[in-house]
């Protein structure tokens, strides 16, 4: 749940602070992957990887941290601009 909340909030913040809205954005995919990998690493725990749980928590919190930074530093994309593919 923490990973889902972090990923969803981070992705929305990143989308709102970008210049244009994209249907599939590399940054959003990377954010989601970070959360998923973090959850996996946290569940595997310290047995498989040294300081696994700490690493997992850090990876889980990366999306919301990056999103918050981007949201606070960059201008808000309002009104939104979507890429017209036609």
């Amino acid at each position: 749940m923490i990973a889902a909340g972090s990923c969803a909030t981070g992705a929305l913040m990143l989308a709102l602070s970008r210049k244009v809205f994209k249907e599939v954005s590399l940054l959003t995919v990377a954010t989601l992957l970070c959360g998923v990998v973090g959850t996996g690493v946290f569940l595997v725990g310290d047995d498989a990887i040294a300081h696994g749980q700490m690493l997992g928590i850090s990876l889980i919190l990366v999306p919301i941290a990056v999103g918050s930074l981007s949201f606070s530093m960059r201008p808000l994309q309002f009104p939104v601009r979507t890429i017209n593919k036609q």
Partner: protein
Amino acid sequence: MRLLRDNLLANWWLNFGGASLLASMRAVVQWICLGIWWTRQSKVWLSKMLQSGQDQRQVPPSDSSHFPSECWVTRALKSRKSISAERASGKIQVLALEPFWSFGTVSPASRVETRPKQRTRALQMGLAMPGRANWRFVGVMVAISLVALLFLHLKNPHAVQPTGYLGITLFAAVSLFGQLNGVMQACKARAIEESLLVLTPRWPTQDTVKSLFLQIMFERQSGTWAGWILISLFATVLGWLLKSFLSPSLS
């Protein structure tokens, strides 16, 4: 011992079934009563709304709050004399707007005093975003999840993996994604309305809009988080989650 346990379980299921039957019958009766009351109330409200709509039609179609009162008009006329006196000195372009700014006919965005919750609701309504968390729905979902967890616990009391709880957590996580995705889709779908909103004179500063978006994000998540925490709390206190699952590093 086993026979005693089976008997106890059978009696428990009978009691549980009877209680749930009674509860469902009570709920049906309650909903029927509520429906009758709602139908009567809606008729009264509808007649009141129609009445007020007829009254409003007699008023000229203008927003009276934008026009100055008599007192302001008097003061504006007085200030116009001072403007004409200073016209010769070349300050007219600056002074022309002053009475309107000072009397409130045109108010800058910083002077608009509305509560943050009202502004959040206004932004949500303007962009047709999903509103605040539906707490009744959250309550119903918590109740259904607890019943499902109880059923799974009674079916297999010594389960190693709490599959039901994990499923509910997964469902809550997907719901969380859906809540925020709704906000994003609403933003994307109403780009033209947003560009019109930005042009309005009372549109707040960018920092205020950012804080409104943050509030919306937290509000949208609050229902799901509250429901999941309640379920986890109940499951932990009632012992439906094994200690080995709660703290895997200790086992």
